């Protein structure tokens, strides 16, 4: 099941710089997209989301961009902080119940 793809298993960024995490999807029926953050030994924590009718949503240091024609979304974190180091999952939902997750991207923010 490759409906949601995160092609970069890891990303390393210097503190203070921008982190850009990418996600591609194949199912045009998805109507909501979400980003979750996961620390070791914890469950995923909701970070930010976007409806398919929008192209941008911003919350503090986190901005999600959606390009429907390219079936691509990205999460921008600026400025990046060492505490942002975690695994980031892109996820997509349609019909309300079922959430499809990507494989995750491990972000390392170096001090």
């Amino acid at each position, binding site marked *: 099941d490759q409906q949601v793809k995160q092609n970069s298993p890891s990303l390393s960024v210097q503190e203070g710089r921008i982190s850009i995490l990418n996600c591609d999807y194949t199912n045009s029926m998805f109507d909501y997209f979400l980003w979750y953050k996961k620390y070791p*030994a914890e469950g995923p924590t909701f970070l930010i989301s976007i409806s398919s009718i929008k192209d941008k949503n911003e919350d503090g240091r986190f901005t999600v961009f959606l390009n429907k024609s390219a079936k691509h979304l990205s999460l921008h974190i600026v400025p990046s902080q060492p505490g942002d180091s975690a695994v980031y999952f892109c996820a997509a939902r349609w019909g*309300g*119940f079922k959430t*499809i*997750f990507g494989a995750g991207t491990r972000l390392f923010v170096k001090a």
Partner: protein
Amino acid sequence: EPEVTQTPSHQVTQMGQEVILRCVPISNHLYFYWYRQILGQKVEFLVSFYNNEISEKSEIFDDQFSVERPDGSNFTLKIRSTKLEDSAMYFCASSEALQGLETQYFGPGTRLLVL
């Protein structure tokens, strides 16, 4: 801040045995979910539950799996006859409502190891 809790944190069982994983969702939430993550793989949806019945389930959720809300607070996942490939991290989640971008809050997970 209210949170989803899960017990046990770790469970080791023999192949063929039954296991019950327990979750206490956030108290005012109405929708409940189970996910699993096999080591090194993505988080996979198993099942959603609302109003004392399954709302949706994935192809992974076959006859060996069942869910129950035995009382007003607990939500359980039972695996009837465990297989080696059931070894995974199992996450429970809950949400207040269904519509739109309603956030699902995840528990810390139960790590199941089937020997």
